[in-house]
């Protein structure tokens, strides 16, 4: 009977051959050939396994163990080599696909909002937090909505304050967003808290005035409304809008639709009151007008002015945008030059 010792040199020789062949393989096809040649079904390793027939039955398991462990070893070795080659190949592939990633690609077009839209949306968002709901209205208004209901009777000197475009004997381009207040008071139930925004029109055009500009205003009507609440509302708005704790002050003024009326100044957001070119060294800038709703306005839409009171306030959107973005010339806003618009992406 053959002893294991007799078979062992054969096993050793084969081991050496296989490991050599694997080591010498540089590519995956060559490596695969080694696999087929040495440990495929008809390869020498399988043949060696068959040698067990020559061994006595008590030696058979031992021989089987030896061959199997060799099989295990070369397969591991093979797998390692395969991984190694794959690594090299991937590296080569990546080298072949080298790209200068500093080259420019195709820029996606970036859309932009017009600064007046950005400012309007910001104001709407702030006032929404105080409970104001937005209302729109037509730009062509009858004399009633634009003037009479707002306590600006025909031939009232206050009409001089607003140079009006007429489109018909009794129809104008709205000179302010206040007609929206009247529509709301007519249609909605009280108490009421609304804001109106949109384009307004005055036949006035110079270095600091546009014939078509934009306003936003708020109206609050309830049973008890005070100047103090109005001041608190505007203070909140100013702090949110400029994201700074700026003080405000009221200056007495006159609007036919409010009594008392006030102009609102806020501390200059640029210099915070120290004085700069925006605020003309005064530390304050004018941002809007406000007041308690004149009872005559409520009466004009048949609201009981003994029971209901209100306050209203308004801002020019162009002015707010100019302050916020440090835009020196109002005419840039309607010009729509892309080099201007692209700055607000």
């Amino acid at each position: 009977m053959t002893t294991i010792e007799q078979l062992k040199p054969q096993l050793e020789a084969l081991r050496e051959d296989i490991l050599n062949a694997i080591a010498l393989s540089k590519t995956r096809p060559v490596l695969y050939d080694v696999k087929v040649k040495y440990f495929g079904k008809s390869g020498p390793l399988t043949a060696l396994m068959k040698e067990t027939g020559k061994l006595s039955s008590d030696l058979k398991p031992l021989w089987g163990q030896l061959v199997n462990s060799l099989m295990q070893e070369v397969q591991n070795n093979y797998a390692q080599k395969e991984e190694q080659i794959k690594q090299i190949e991937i590296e080569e592939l990546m080298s072949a696909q080298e790209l200068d990633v500093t080259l420019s690609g195709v820029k996606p077009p970036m859309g932009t909002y017009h600064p007046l839209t950005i400012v309007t949306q910001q104001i709407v968002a702030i006032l929404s937090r105080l409970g104001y709901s937005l209302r729109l209205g037509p730009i062509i208004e009858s004399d009633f909505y634009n003037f009479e209901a707002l306590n600006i009777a025909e031939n009232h000197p206050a009409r001089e304050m607003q140079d009006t475009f007429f489109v018909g004997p009794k129809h104008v381009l709205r000179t302010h967003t206040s007609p929206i207040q009247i529509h709301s008071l007519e249609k909605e139930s009280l108490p009421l808290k609304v804001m109106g925004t949109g384009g307004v029109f005055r036949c006035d055009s110079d270095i600091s005035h546009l014939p078509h500009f934009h306003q936003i205003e708020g109206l609050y009507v309830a049973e008890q409304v005070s100047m103090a609440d109005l001041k608190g509302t505007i203070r909140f708005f100013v702090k949110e809008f400029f994201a700074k704790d700026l003080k405000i002050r009221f200056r007495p003024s006159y609007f036919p639709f409010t009594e008392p009326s006030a102009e609102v100044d806020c501390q200059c957001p640029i210099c915070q009151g120290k004085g700069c070119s925006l605020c003309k060294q005064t530390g304050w800038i004018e941002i809007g007008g406000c007041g308690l709703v004149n009872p005559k306005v409520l009466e004009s839409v048949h609201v009981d002015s003994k029971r209901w009171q209100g306050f209203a306030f308004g801002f020019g959107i162009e002015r707010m945008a100019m302050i916020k973005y440090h835009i020196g010339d109002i005419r840039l806003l309607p010009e729509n030059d892309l080099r201007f618009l692209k700055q607000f992406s």
Partner: protein
Amino acid sequence: MKISLNWINEFVEIHDYMTKPQELAQILTFAGLEVESIEDKSKNYNHVVVGLILDKKPHPEADKLSVCQVTTGQGVVHQIVCGAKNHKTNDRVVVALPGAELPNGMKIGEAVLRNVPSKGMLCSFDELMIDPHLPEKPQGIVILPEQAALGQPFSEYWGLDDIIFELKVTPNRADCLSHLGLARELAALLDRPLKENTNVFTNYSEEIKNPFSIDLPLNAEADCQAYQGIYLKDVTVTPSPDWLKKRIEVLGFKSINNVVDITNYIMLETGQPMHAFDAKKIGHEQVVIRHSEEGEPFTSLDGQNYILPQGALVISNKLQGDVLAIAGIIGGKDFSVTPETDSLFLEIANFNTSQIRKTSRKLGIQTESAYRFSRGVDLGVGAKEALTRACFLLAKYTGAKISSDIKSFSSQSAFKAPAKIALSVSFAQQKLGFKIEFDQIEDVLKRIGCLFSKDDSDAQTFWVTPPSWRFDIEADVDLVEEVGRLIGYDKIPETLGSALNLVPTGHQSEYLQITRLTDKCVQAGLCQVLNSVFVSQVKEQAFTNDQSLMNNLLGQRLGGPVYLINPLSNEENQLRTLLTLKMADLVVQNLRQGVTKGQLFEIGSCVTQSSIASAGPQAPIVGSGVGGGMGADSVTYLEIPHLSLALWGKPVQAWLNEPEIPPVLRLKEILFSSIQSWSGINIQVKKPSDRSLLPAFLHKGQSALIYYNNQSIGFIGAMHPLWMEENKIREPVVVAELSLKNFLLDSQIEEKKFMPFIKRPLVERDLALILGKNKTSQEVLDIMSAVFGPILQNVELFDIYEGEKVPEGYRQLAYRLGLQAEQNLKIMTDIEINALIQQLITQLKNELGAQLREA
């Protein structure tokens, strides 16, 4: 309005503020009388004083110069070299000392002239920039009279030591359009007394008969509340005295003669306009205040000729006679005061504010008088003050004798006692939002001239009677404003309190929808623009060529454009009916500025008239917030939001070859996907069978109409080659515009709901079709949709071929169809799919003559 502080100081003591006018301005501004500018008249004459020439010697080295020793008092002597010839020893002169900067910009320093030191300059009127009002312009330096005090600042000597405030007076404060009025306001604000008037006239002559009678027809009564006609005899018309000239000139008035200057002076002082007629020129002795007839001629003081409209209030010399003046606005040239005048008819009247405003606007005449009358003139105290002060000055400076027989008229309503207003402390506190004491209210209201009485039954309520000049105070809220204003708005605390106790009702849906569409457009890479609504009528007409066609293809609008009655210019005399005109202009502008590519969008309202017959006082509701108003003139207006897009220039300057998609198709995809993701609605483009149905400004071969539910709502296309040529543009420019009316009307834009999606892959089939070039891709797609219905999930056009392999006039379009059974339950079999494909091919062949390309 301009206010002289020196003048104010005659009525209330404000001398202490002359050195700190900013403080006074601040007080006025925070009382609601905004001071827009402060002009210090003396600042140009610092270091300019009155001097006396002690000695004058010729200059040793220059014939034309003299060397003067000049004293400015208190033993101070300056050596000054002078080039003038008109001065001599013992003359009083105007000396500009080193440090002075004259109004013409000349800076005075110490100098050496031809080896002689000179410390200052003797000034001429030109150098001082002063008009001395002499018949001949004096040459050389100013020689002052002997009374001039040595060392006195020149500004003080010449009455230039004044500070002028430019005030912005709001329309409610007509009482502040005079020095007396503003002095009253300052007296209240500073809590100082008013000084007593010394210009009181009592010396009326009983002997002189007033020959005039006043006639106010009944129908004119409403327009003339009061009228006083004063007769003055033995008047001497001369130039005004210096003080008077300076007073009115510093406020921008031109000095005419003593009579006219005094009437202007009284107006500036009391706010009461008045007019002096030459009594002899009136001719007829009956003065009539009446309404004009249409076509009456009138020549104003300044020589302008007018043809009067019907209904202007005029002063006339007898019924239907000559027009002496347009009441309250301007006098007539033929009746004016001239140097020959020796008797006057002086009018102190009060006219209806509306009447004055209307006439002044109609005739386009703006005068100081009309300005005051249109805002309201004090009928009570003001008129009395004006009369006595005017007579005082006229008697003193013209030598006039004034008839005691003043012809006057006043309507019953004019002098009715001002209404008492009830005001309670609690009401004032609640409105202003802070605690105010009873006494405080009493104090401030009394300061502004109100009469004040307590209510017998209620200790917290009082009755207030405003003074005659505060006719703006009509109700309790007006008093609250006065209280707040005088106590100071800075006392108002900042609270939110009850202002937060309200459940919000939600924004109007149109705003939310438009905001979302704006978001979608920006996400699609478009830049938002906001153009003005104004266009030129001529330009828009030329651009669109056919207004009704445009209306049709943008939806069914009915009327023509809306024009401005009073446009700023012909460039802006109409409201836009479409956005594209301005958008195309904007592209041109940007290209001219060197911006070679871009993509823009605008969402904005377009306006037309509507001929819908008026059914009632309500405007037709065209959806929430869409649409306009309607009024007595029975024209309705439609305001419809549009979306407009524009794209120009080459897409990308890439270094890799990208297939170049025609710009119009790029814009179409941007538009479709924006609208789709905004509204969930698929719009279509179609070429109309008749090319003349396309907008005139578009390239006929590269444009189409946009449809929504088989209704045309807009257009898309490249700009017309002629437009490109006119504007010298080579880069492609494409535009699109559509009406958003249907989207905003339909409730289709709802919250998106999650739809279970099918987890199996799509079944894909490729189809290559050969069809005539006159057939559009949309027609193919329409048939595909019709055949497959909802199982057609997507269609992709992956190839277009024209060339040898297809017959001439044909092209090959290759589509990849993605199909999926409607519900996950069903798996589509090949047989089912093939049957549908077969049906599609048959339909394509029958309807479009399309052939399937053999594989």
